[in-house]
């Protein structure tokens, strides 16, 4: 089935089985292997990408449902010679061990900081009618859809906080 995706600013036309998840389309059909398959059931967040500005689990959606959509993967967020502020902060703060969850963590955090800028509350926000300050508890709660098997969580939170402070 013909599906058009705009990925990291480049238009791609795919002819794929409707069963193909967005994650498999990225990895197997387009060679964009930065997005990782962890659980393949929407629980670990390793497959997180940004679609039309919002972070989603690419393993739990079909590529054909996204015909015409704009997708940003970790490859579009930055490259080794041109890291995003979050990527640089993950390196500086040692926000990973094995690195498998890191592309998902960074895609997720990139969109998460935008959610905070837009005033979205979280489960740990005291007054949900107004916005929230980005405390460590807020970062942890908002990043709860991204698991890290190495448990690098303290440094992940630190990296996100440093990157957020830098861009504030």
């Amino acid at each position: 089935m013909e599906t058009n995706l705009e990925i990291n600013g480049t238009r791609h036309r795919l002819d794929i089985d409707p069963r193909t998840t967005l994650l498999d389309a990225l990895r197997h059909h387009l060679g964009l292997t930065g997005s990782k398959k962890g659980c393949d059931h929407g629980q670990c967040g390793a497959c997180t990408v940004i679609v039309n500005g919002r972070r989603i689990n690419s393993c739990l959606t079909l590529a054909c449902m996204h015909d015409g959509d704009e997708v940003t993967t970790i490859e579009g967020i930055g490259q080794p010679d041109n890291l995003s502020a979050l990527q640089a902060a993950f390196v500086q703060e040692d926000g990973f061990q094995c690195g498998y969850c890191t592309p998902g963590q960074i895609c997720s955090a990139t969109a998460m900081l935008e959610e905070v800028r837009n005033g979205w509350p979280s489960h740990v926000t005291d007054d949900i009618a107004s916005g929230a300050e980005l405390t460590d508890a807020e970062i942890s709660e908002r990043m709860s859809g991204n698991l890290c098997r190495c448990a690098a969580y303290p440094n992940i939170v630190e990296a996100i906080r440093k990157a957020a402070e830098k861009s504030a």
Partner: protein
Amino acid sequence: MRAFDYVRADSAEGAVRDAAGGAAFIAGGTNLIDLMKLEVMSPETLVDINRLAMNGIEDTADGGLRIGALVTNSDLANDSRVRRNWPVLSRALLAGASGQLRNKATTGGNLLQRTRCLYFYDRASACNKREPGTGCAAQEGFNRILAVLGTSEHCIATHPSDMAVAMRALGAEGRR
């Protein structure tokens, strides 16, 4: 995952027509695709309703809100009116799932999601909900997450939605 025909609906009437016989509607897909991967659900046709104009939250004349079936959990939880006037609904939504899932999961899909009963998910177990007439392995199994009130000898499954509980407490009604 079993093969299926994929149809994109461009009107509600068309979606209902396309869904006749063996079809399932798909919106966010966060529960359905998971169940399809496990082959707990294997619809012959998927009718994609994401392009239908059902993603609005409107004020009603009697001071309430009318929430479209395709409003995402994120958009509903973050709506300033919901946060101010019906905070239990925002809090219930924010207590569930993850940021990524809430960005995809919809209001209609949240109500229509399937139980998380372990035996419903395990195709090797008896489950009247998955396969009527086979029995209920949950009765004598691991059933701590399942119901103690309002059950029957056929099924003790619970509905998994936090959002539905808040809506029920607020007296929400489903309307066509």
